[in-house]
């Protein structure tokens, strides 16, 4: 298999330039037979999928299946052990400004006594060395920050210390920070975790709306697909060492999800065509103690 992978990577430059260009226009992520290994353990393999520009993809899968690993792969923080993956027509690299990332977290340090506005502003030039040149582009930066704060509806609490804000407010600010780099792809790792229902819906809607307005593709990891179903164009599922992608109708079925989570999951459709998934959030921990 490894030989095969090397073969594939060598093959790659042979494919003509305009073919590559056309691929990058359509797909912003292209993965072919990708496998990821952490230590000696293969997390998943055979990952073949493409994600189109502006597409809203929800990533589901049980704990430890390698969802965050997939995001780290796209961020260039780890490398595939087999196959190849391209983001924007190139191998993933660290610090790609076309990607906005919000990592998985419970909450920020409550003692983080830094103004939310300053926290968000790190998205502009926080990665550059040195100190900001005094008086240069200060006003411009202030306007940029205000613009994303307005976009995520966080202006009201932008002057407060970020550690003192609620989970939903922090998620909005993290999103604002990610948007500052003008990304074409947003990677959001469980942004809905530890939020109440109202905030889950609000954040899901906000992400979808902002992504649509700015034509940003979204890869959003979530355990609960319900708040995301109205916006999800495709579902990418990571389970049992495999990756698959499909329309929500194809993936979110009782049979598929039950097999994927290895636990009873029930999918129901109501009279208005809404899909309801039971068992992912509530029933699962009760049935599998170690789940």
């Amino acid at each position: 298999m490894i030989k095969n992978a090397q073969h594939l990577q060598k093959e790659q430059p042979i494919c003509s330039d305009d073919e590559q260009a056309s691929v990058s226009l359509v797909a912003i992520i292209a993965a072919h037979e990708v496998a990821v290994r952490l230590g000696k353990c293969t997390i998943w393999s055979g990952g073949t999928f493409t994600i189109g520009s502006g597409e809203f993809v929800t990533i589901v899968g049980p704990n430890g299946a390698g969802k965050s690993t997939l995001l780290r792969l796209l961020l260039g923080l780890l490398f595939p052990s087999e196959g190849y993956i391209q983001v924007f027509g190139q191998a993933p690299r660290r610090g790609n400004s076309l990607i906005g990332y919000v990592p998985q977290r419970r909450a920020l340090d409550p003692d983080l006594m830094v103004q939310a506005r300053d926290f968000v502003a790190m998205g502009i030039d926080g990665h550059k060395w040195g100190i900001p040149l005094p008086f240069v582009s200060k006003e411009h930066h202030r306007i940029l920050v205000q613009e994303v704060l307005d976009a995520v509806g966080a202006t009201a609490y932008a002057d407060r210390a970020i550690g003192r804000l609620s989970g939903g407010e922090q998620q909005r600010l993290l999103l604002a920070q990610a948007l500052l780099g003008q990304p074409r792809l947003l990677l959001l790792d469980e942004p809905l975790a530890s939020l109440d229902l109202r905030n889950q819906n609000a954040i899901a809607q906000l992400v979808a709306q902002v992504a649509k307005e700015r034509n940003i593709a979204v890869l959003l990891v979530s355990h609960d697909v319900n708040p995301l179903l109205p916006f999800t164009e495709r579902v990418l599922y990571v389970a049992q060492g495999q990756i698959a992608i499909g329309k929500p109708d194809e993936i979110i079925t009782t049979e598929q999800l039950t097999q994927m989570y290895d636990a009873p999951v029930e999918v129901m459709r109501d009279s208005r065509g809404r899909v309801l998934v039971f068992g992912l959030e509530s029933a699962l921990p009760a049935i599998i103690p170690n789940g």
Partner: protein
Amino acid sequence: MSMLSTTLASLTPFSWNPIDDLQTIFQYAFMRNAFAAGTVVAIVAGIVGYFVVLRNLSFAGHSLSHSGFAGATAAVVIGASPVSGLLVFTIGSALIMGTLGKRLHGRDVIVGVVLAWTLGLGIFFLSLYSGYANQAYSILFGQILGISQNDVQVTFFTSAATLLAIVLVYRPLLFASLDEEIAESRGIPTRIISIIFLVIVALAVSAATQVVGVLLIFSLLVTPAAIAERLSTHPPTVILLSVLLAILFTWAGLLIAFYFPYPVSFFITSFAFLAYIIVRVLPVTQEGTIALIKWKRNVSHKNIKKQAIVGNS
């Protein structure tokens, strides 16, 4: 040290004319040296201290100062200047902590391990050294009134290097201190930043030990920043306030110690503690700062609003 202070107090009585007093104070070379070194150290400690507080590294800073004790005693044993030993040991410990500590946010086992070992070394070197206990005393509790011209130069050089390093890494350091994972995803080498910062702390600790000594390092490295953090939430403002507070405590300590026969570090630490208690007692606003102080950061906002109103009418 106490002998020195006693003679000081008898030198010149306190007058109510501040200009006379300052003239009296600055006519002594050791006071000029003390003010020069103290001010420089306060600036460095104030700046570095902000990041120490932000990164929850106060334990690491504390441990580095104890490594400094081992280094200084070792240097005295072999007949070298205590500062050189301080620098070698604190930087060495910083590198060990930085390399072995996986993520230094809250991971303090390795810090404790290094702390215990270097303290053991300190006791070992102290036992080898049967000379004046005075030397060990001044390493532990500061020796600013006895600081030599050469030590002042070393302090200046160390401080300049520390400030330069902070300026070079300022933005990625701040970003990584706020959120390591996001910073990493934006291409910041967070691990290297983390090690660089520990070396910066080591340099600052070595400089600050000259003033307040190993055991009292917190009063300059942590307390001013911790106070400043409650006065503002805008990082550059916090850093500025932290520096001003550190300078204020140092100057006040030096001035008062000139007239009273007690150690300078006692006054510096007492002022720092008192100020900290005051800001902790005062009520805090929704913005997370002390209610009495209102920083007008959104002045331009108000101007825009005003202009809009004027424009409409």
